[in-house]
């Protein structure tokens, strides 16, 4: 959405309430639960960007959540193509949504939402410990998590920290990326110092780095 001005936040600007209808909040809850139970595939945020642009812009906020939740479930194979349509037909024909009570599960889930989630283990990563990498000389248009003082500087990858959502792309962040602890020599960052030399270690997203 970068560069598309005039649309404001994804929620209708000036909207008075979080959601207009109860179904919208259920979609939000569903999306969260799909994530917590690991029955979807792909980051909800990135997939939302996959909608055809015209559909994306025309869809309401919760329409996009609903679309992306379906996509994640399909990708994972938790549901298959016709499952949702079949149920829609059944509901239209008068069937009721089946209910299921599980207070213990509910308690556990509420606890889970209050916890923060650690970095996910890295499935694949471009760089490995001891690789020499250079921080790209970047002029980010918007927000970035890459501090200016290391841009253009070469360092050594020490540790692969894990995967996290790339934070630079707003408003929902980008796809998952590897995060690396990269060590820089102070001489390379700031030039020679009367203090001698020291090491500065930053946790940097893969997009910030290129081979050196």
């Amino acid at each position, binding site marked *: 959405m970068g560069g598309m001005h005039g649309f*404001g*936040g*994804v*929620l*209708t*600007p*000036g*909207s*008075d309430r*979080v959601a207009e209808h109860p179904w919208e909040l259920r979609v*939000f809850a569903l999306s*969260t639960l799909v994530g917590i139970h690991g029955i979807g595939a792909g980051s909800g945020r990135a997939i939302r960007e996959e909608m055809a642009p015209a559909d994306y812009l025309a869809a309401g906020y919760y329409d996009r959540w609903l679309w992306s939740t379906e996509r994640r479930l399909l990708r994972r194979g938790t549901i298959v193509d016709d499952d949702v349509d079949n149920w829609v037909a059944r509901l239209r024909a008068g069937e009721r949504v089946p209910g299921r009570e599980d207070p213990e599960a509910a308690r556990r889930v509420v606890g889970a*939402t*209050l916890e923060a989630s650690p970095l996910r283990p890295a499935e694949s990563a471009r760089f490995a410990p001891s690789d020499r990498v250079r921080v790209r000389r970047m002029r980010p248009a918007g*927000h970035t*998590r890459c501090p200016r003082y290391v841009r253009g500087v070469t360092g050594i990858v020490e540790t692969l920290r894990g995967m996290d*959502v790339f*934070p630079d792309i*707003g*408003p929902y*962040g980008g796809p998952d990326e590897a995060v690396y602890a990269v060590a820089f020599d102070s001489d390379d960052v700031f030039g020679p110092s009367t203090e001698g030399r020291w090491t500065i270690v930053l946790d940097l997203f893969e997009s910030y780095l290129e081979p050196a």
Partner: protein
Amino acid sequence: MSGTTDPGVADPAAPAAPPRSNGELVFEEPWESRAFGVAVALHDARVVDFETFRAHLIDEIAAWEAEHRPSAAGYRYYERWLAALERTLLEAGLVDAPRVEAARTALEHEWSHDHDHDH
């Protein structure tokens, strides 16, 4: 910059202890604690992603630093926090500016009214 310049810090070399029992202030002003509490509560309630808020906080801090010399006095961390919180909520459409302004005006009236009554 050292701990001894912190208001409310008794002794930076003291044993680690819960702030209150140390006589240490976590927040310099009550409003700071409210701004803090609101931001964390929004995350807890899954209303706002804390990373979205953090991005705005980083940007607000950077904006202040771009406009002030490094040695400039008057940096208030929680003022940056509050600005970031306002921006996050406005951009997400969770609050709208006229409503917040109306609330502010109402509170100002209420507070000065109470103040007058104390005298």
